[in-house]
């Protein structure tokens, strides 16, 4: 088989509930692809349809040129690392890893199993049962058990969700290393935006059964297509405004009495009402009335309402005259003035860091997330 994984207008309904809604997706061969979204967005269902554990209501799943939509899971060259690992508790680590090869009638697999266990650094634990391993070790067994079959596509269903932060970081790097080493197609489902951005070449942000936006992490972050992406992937300040005109590459937007500019390439709409957005770390603070450089967007007349020091940066909440709170992250380089709650401040940022979104969308879409 081999080749790209292609989902074409795939819909999955459970009774009246539509889990996946007319989804089109193409995962290039050999890429590390992340499906990112909040719980219940349909990402796991999508994964299960690729694995064959759920069958699409309509639509097709292609692997290369082969239609695998109705193929039984045990006949697909696809393996899954399950969220809860689903290791066989009655088998040793080595037997768990050997399971897939044995089912395909392979003999003399001891060397392969040993090699795979070495890859995930579990040689010494080969004779243990999964119940005697830590969460991180179990996760590596699950990975080895899937990888050893050299599937065309490896599916990872929130594989790091059960691990603590430090171990998760370590495993992220490990997974990325292994993917580069073996060169397989990885499809990684996660609700952790940082995890998706760290590991994947391409991220698809999913919401309510649909793909909101798909692209390299930088592109999604710098130029979100929807308010959901703007809020779910990192944080955004979204301010209501309306387009007053364009000049060259710039779109002019009237925002609560101030004029700001946005790059045309990051403007999803170029007329009418818009959400003008900017990422908190792109904004810097200055004392009231201080002249800013030319062609810088400025929103004046804010009052610092909250300051939290988080080591590498300081996070400010600034209340604006129209009673909206905006977020500003200032790097703690030592060169910048510190502000205190109650201080009057102006906000400045460069026009090319502004993005414009359709104002008909909910500005709070995708905000519910707390950093995990």
């Amino acid at each position, binding site marked *: 088989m081999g080749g790209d994984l292609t989902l074409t207008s795939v819909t999955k309904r459970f009774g009246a509930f539509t889990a996946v809604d007319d989804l089109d997706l193409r995962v290039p061969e050999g890429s590390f692809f992340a499906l990112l979204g909040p719980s219940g967005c349909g990402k796991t269902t999508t994964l299960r349809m690729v694995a064959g554990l759920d069958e699409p209501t309509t639509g097709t799943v292609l692997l290369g040129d082969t239609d695998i939509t109705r193929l039984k899971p045990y006949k697909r060259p696809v393996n899954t690392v399950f969220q809860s690992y*689903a*290791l066989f*508790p*009655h088998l040793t680590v080595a037997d768990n890893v050997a399971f897939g090869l044995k089912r395909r009638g392979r003999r003399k697999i001891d060397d392969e199993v040993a090699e795979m266990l070495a890859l995930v650094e579990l040689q010494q634990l080969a004779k243990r049962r999964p119940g005697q391993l830590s969460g991180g070790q179990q996760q590596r067994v699950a990975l080895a058990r899937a990888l050893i*079959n050299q599937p065309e596509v490896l599916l990872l269903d929130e594989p790091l969700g059960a691990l603590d932060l430090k171990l998760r970081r370590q495993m992220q790097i490990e997974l990325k290393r292994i993917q580069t080493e073996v060169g397989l197609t990885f499809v990684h489902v996660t609700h952790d935006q940082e995890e998706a951005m760290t590991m994947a070449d391409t991220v698809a942000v999913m919401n309510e059964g649909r793909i909101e936006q798909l692209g390299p992490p930088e592109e999604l972050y710098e130029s979100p297509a929807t308010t959901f992406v703007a809020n779910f992937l990192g944080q955004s300040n979204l301010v209501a405004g309306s387009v007053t005109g364009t000049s060259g590459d710039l779109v002019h937007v009237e925002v609560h009495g101030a004029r700001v500019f946005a790059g045309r390439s990051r403007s999803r709409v170029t007329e009418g009402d818009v959400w003008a957005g900017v990422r908190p770390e792109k904004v810097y603070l200055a004392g009231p009335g201080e002249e800013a450089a030319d062609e810088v967007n400025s929103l004046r007349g804010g009052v610092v309402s909250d300051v939290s020091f988080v080591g590498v940066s300081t996070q400010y909440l600034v209340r604006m005259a129209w009673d909206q709170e905006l977020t500003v992250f200032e790097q703690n380089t030592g060169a910048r003035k510190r502000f205190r709650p109650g201080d009057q401040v102006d906000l400045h940022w460069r026009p090319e860091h502004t993005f414009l979104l359709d104002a008909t969308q909910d500005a709070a879409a995708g905000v519910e997330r707390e950093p995990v």
Partner: protein
Amino acid sequence: MSAAGHVPSLGPTEAQLTGRPDPASRRSGWSGYLLLLPGGLWLLLFFVVPTVTLMATSLYDPAGSLQTGYAMTGHWQNYVEALGDYAPQFVRSLVYALLATVACIVLGFPLAYAIAFKAGRWKNLMLVAVIAPFFTSFLVRTLSWQYILGDNEALVGFLRSIHVLAPDGYLLATPFAVVTGLTYNFLPFMVLPLYASLEKLDPRLIEAGADLYASPVTTFRTVTLPLAMPGLVAGTLLTFIPSAGDYINSELLGNPRTRMIGNEIQDLFGAGDYPTAASLSVTLMAAIVVLVFVYVRRAGTEELL
């Protein structure tokens, strides 16, 4: 003999998980022994003493009687005579018990599986339905099988009409009726432990099997069955042991040629031949202990893959 002791444990113990000795074992004192006391006394009085008495009785001189008393002569010939006279009943008991146990597995495994995985909101109702027969007496339930299998009843009539039975064929008073009765009476003892094992089985493991190239049949053989083993072993013991010693089903549903060892023991006690009855009982016990021991050892250590 406990089944659980021989089945490989599927998870680490508390002490393995925490890396500390069990706090209870460090706490010296009398509380543990005090807690053991009531159960220990009970076992001593109603298990150890009767067993020793039974073994002693089996070696009494058969010349005595209840009225005149027995002399302890170490008369091991009781065993030789008992085995010589009752070998057919012994074999029959073990064969019937085996057939009933196999029938219980065949009927009970799909039922337990369905309750554990497919019943949804009917799960509790189905469990109640499995236990509900216990609200009626064992005797009454067995007697009602006389009616179900009766010569002039619907079942036999139907089987005759579709030529499964000959026009003068019958079911009651046959080995079939006895095994049916045993199966019926002990089925819940198979279903409940099997259900308990299957209930604990994470359905994702079955999906993982499918994901790793195992067909449904292979997944059953390599994942579901090994993980259901503790329940299967417990269910087998709870079915086989009482079936082998049962005499009610043969008494009510069988004929003189379906007599099991339990019937003979009961008759011998009734007739006052205590030494022979006791030697038969001890032999049955020993046979079951050996069979169970071999079975549990095999089920526990056999490489099932």
